[in-house]
């Protein structure tokens, strides 16, 4: 039950994009088409789960024994950057179809702040290994939900006669704000 709570809280109640407002650059950058946002979502789910697992291990088995917790920012950035490179090389050789499906989004995610945020938050919440895995899965699923919904709205908006001053990002930000208000409705569910 606790694991379900962690997943659900990360998925809807504390949605990383619409409630926490982390990783907004990619949220606006790749949400103009549903196809690209789906590609991005899968790449995020993949990278976020693996990188948060590795960061958890490094934090508790390398940084904590040496009392170097203050170095976690530098170490996590180093870890995630190398990890994404490694995953890219591995996929290119072993699963080329998946590599092609994720395309450019895989290397782009190296600098996605949500990945780093999840690694930090899982440690700040003092989750154990399993809980932190469930947490990162929930966050990335929430990311996918928000960006795909948003992409559908933006595809529809492309057909609407929007006043010139609101075209492009202004109307996108207004839409995101409205979606964020809607997601606030989830807070308090299951007493979370």
């Amino acid at each position, binding site marked *: 039950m606790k694991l379900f709570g962690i997943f659900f809280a990360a998925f809807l109640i504390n949605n990383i994009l619409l409630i926490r407002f982390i990783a907004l650059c990619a949220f606006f950058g790749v949400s103009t088409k549903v196809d690209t946002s789906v590609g991005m979502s899968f790449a995020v789910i993949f990278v976020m789960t693996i990188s948060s697992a590795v960061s958890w291990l490094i934090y508790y088995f390398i940084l904590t024994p040496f009392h*170097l917790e203050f*170095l976690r920012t530098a*170490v996590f950035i*180093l870890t995630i950057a*190398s990890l994404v490179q490694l995953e890219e*090389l591995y996929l290119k*050789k072993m699963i080329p179809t998946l590599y092609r499906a994720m395309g450019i989004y895989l290397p782009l995610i190296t600098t996605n702040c949500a990945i780093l945020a999840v690694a930090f938050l899982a440690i700040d919440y003092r989750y154990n290994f399993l809980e932190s895995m469930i947490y990162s899965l929930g966050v990335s699923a929430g990311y996918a939900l928000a960006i795909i919904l948003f992409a559908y709205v933006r595809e529809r908006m492309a*057909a*609407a*006669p929007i006043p010139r001053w609101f075209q492009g990002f202004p109307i996108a930000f207004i839409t995101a704000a409205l979606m964020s208000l809607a997601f606030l409705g989830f807070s308090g569910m299951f007493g979370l």
Partner: protein
Amino acid sequence: MMILISILVLGVMGLVFAGLLGFAADYFRVEEDPRVGQLMAVLPGGNCGACGFAGCRDFSEKLILGDAGVGGCVAGGAKVGEAIAAIMGVQAAAFDRKVATVHCGAKLDQRKPKAHYTGIETCFAVNMVDGGGLACAYGCLGHEDCQAACPFDAIRMEEGLPVIDPEKCTACGNCVTACPRKIISIRPQAFPVVVACSSQDAGAVVRKICPVGCIGCKICVKQVPEVFAVSDNLAVVDYTKTGVSCDAAIDKCPTKCIVRL
């Protein structure tokens, strides 16, 4: 002491990751045809997708596999086609220039209304509400989505119909995707014969709602059977049959929906 440990730990981690990446780069190396790099250098690099593949990289890979033609890069034109042919070691075929064509010929006063539409003035939106006020379920809606989608300023609207400037058109296909009724297609410029209708309704229905629609009478097929065919009550042109005169069919078409541009 703390500083020393920090430096050591970070340094060792950096070294381990670097070693791991170096090893992986070697172990997971994918042998790539060197021609892919050469092709990428000559292609425009815009990843416009007009060739029908996912981007310039995909196109170059398909060229090497033989799935794409050397003249396939629409945006690059003849110059890029020659460069590709030189890399691939084949003779460049005459570059087959393509342009967009509109498959509807009903001007504003020829369109039969069925309802009064007041709503968002884009073809995309009008098409979602069953074609707005237009009786024909296939024809041009005339709200200029194609004109707005054209990056080369090659489309202008005349009497509610888009007119494509063949000089400016690069056959990028943006208007083909933008048109919700799918009445724009890409044809070879050297073959200027077009069926200016997309209606798949039966002839009797078309006669009631449009004076210039294709009624599927097959007179064109009788006149020039090499080029014309009728499927789903609509005449279609086989653009691979260059050099066949279509004049007989154009003259005999009872609704004059086959036109020479």
